[in-house]
């Protein structure tokens, strides 16, 4: 399936969408950019920290609500579009459901386990509890209400056409986001044969029954890093931070990197992909899954 088809089919206006669940690596920027190109509106974005992608979707006017622990630009600081939306209502106002990294994980586990909430000690004594209607204090614990994504978009190193996805490196809140979501859309660096994914079933992230689309999208996480495939493009984040300081600067950035590129393949022509591509090789030792 192409990215355009996957977003058209599975990310409607008003959807609750989990993105960037591995924190700084494996961020599905290509999927986010396609949502912007298709003019999605009223999304509720769910994530732990968001390194620049939420900021871009907010600046493009796609977002009604943020449900996250942190929104900004990790190596550069504040998210300028996030600031404009929350401080001045530009390009539109935004509802914010603040979380911590732990509480958003628990909110997704609650949804995954089909319970209304999970109790925790985190957030005790924090004013975040008073700002987010899904957090309540009772019996000396904070009860973290379930967050139910309609769809989780997950970028991985490799997947097969039937939705078995392999990711490696730190996973952040990827597993709970996928289990909590009604549907999972996988975007991958490499589309591989099922013999590859099934050779290591421990590494498969989600039950294939949750996965509704697999999009082969090399470079789809740029500028975020993909272990074994792409380094992080630090200067791209720096340039985005500088450009997005003003609405006009952000609009030009969006034009150059989203509206004027038809798809990810066209986008990749604009970056120095060869320098960013990982050349080294340090494979893990295979595990023996012999059938005896």
């Amino acid at each position, binding site marked *: 399936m192409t990215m355009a088809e996957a977003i058209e089919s599975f990310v409607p206006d008003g959807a609750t969408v989990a993105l960037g669940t*591995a*924190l*700084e*690596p494996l961020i599905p920027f290509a999927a986010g950019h396609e949502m912007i190109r298709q003019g999605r509106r009223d999304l509720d974005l769910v994530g*732990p*920290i968001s*390194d620049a992608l939420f900021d871009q979707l907010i600046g493009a006017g796609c977002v009604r609500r943020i449900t*996250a*622990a*942190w*929104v*900004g630009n*990790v*190596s550069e*600081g*504040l*998210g300028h579009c*996030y*600031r404009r939306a*929350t*401080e001045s209502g530009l390009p539109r106002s935004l509802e*914010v459901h*603040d*979380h*911590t*990294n*732990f*509480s958003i*994980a*628990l909110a997704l*586990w609650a949804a995954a386990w089909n319970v209304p909430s999970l109790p*925790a*000690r*985190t*957030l*005790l*004594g*924090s*004013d*975040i509890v008073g*700002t987010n209607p899904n957090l309540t204090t009772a019996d*000396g*614990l904070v009860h973290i209400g379930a967050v139910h994504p309609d769809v989780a978009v997950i970028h991985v190193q490799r997947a097969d056409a039937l939705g078995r996805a392999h990711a*490696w*490196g*730190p*996973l*952040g*809140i*990827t597993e*709970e986001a996928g289990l909590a979501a009604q549907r999972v859309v996988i975007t991958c660096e490499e589309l591989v044969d099922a013999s590859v994914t099934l050779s290591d079933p421990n590494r498969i992230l989600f039950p294939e029954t949750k996965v509704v689309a697999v999009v082969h999208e090399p470079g789809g996480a740029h500028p975020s*890093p993909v*272990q*074994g495939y792409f*380094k*992080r493009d*630090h200067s791209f*984040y720096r340039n985005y931070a500088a450009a997005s300081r003003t609405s006009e600067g952000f609009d030009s950035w969006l034009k150059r990197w989203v509206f004027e590129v038809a798809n990810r393949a066209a986008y990749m022509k604009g970056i120095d992909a060869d320098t960013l591509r*990982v050349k080294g090789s*340090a494979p893990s030792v295979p595990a023996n899954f012999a059938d005896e």
Partner: protein
Amino acid sequence: MSDRDYTAQELMVAVASREISDGDLVFVGMRLPILAYAVARNNHAPNARGLFEVGLMRDLPAMSYLGTMGDPPNVAGALWATRMSNLMALMAQGLVDLGFIGGAEVDRFGNLNTSYVGPPSKPRVKLPGSGGAADIAILSRRWVTLMSHERRRLVDRVSFVTSPGHGDGTRGWRRRNGLLGTGPAAIVTTMCVFRFPEGGGEAYLDSIHPGYTLAEVRENTGWPMEPVGDVKETPAPTVSELSVMRALQKSDGGTTGV
């Protein structure tokens, strides 16, 4: 500071590193705390381990530039790559000895604000949010915050408590409210080190960095500060502390933050 052979940040890193004991499990952050962790590992805490909330445990810090804790050099050589909630489980069990937290604003009771300046419904400045900071503040056994010493950052009371320190400053506030750890152990600034009385309360001035005066610290602190007893001079970074942080800076092109 021009007559000294180290920067204010290098001194902060040295002070922070001395908070790490051998064998500690440390919730590390980015930039200065990574350097502090590296200094401790190389000097007095060879058995410390570091956690990165993205989902990593490490022994030795990565020796190349990291834009974020999830960068590939931080993953290669990890002791554990996992989901974030597994690390939070360790912290919820009281097994994380020390955390580092950055902040935009800290108050006299060690509460941190990284969420809103002005009312949350119509903020004057929207800061990025907690990330894992509130989790560390509430669940780790003790924590340290590092901050540039400016009057607008060291305020009497933060308007929004993202990450609680000692709350309203009354003794035992954390225990009464169910928070797990002992809270902020120190605020390390570019001018001085504040510490807190056991059981909670108001920050007191513990030491002033070489080259600064009590008057300067007072002038740049947003609460009326009365030193309790003798204020020491912060020990300068040692040659060996400086050599570790400079080696790391050199290996990563000097971009880790000092």
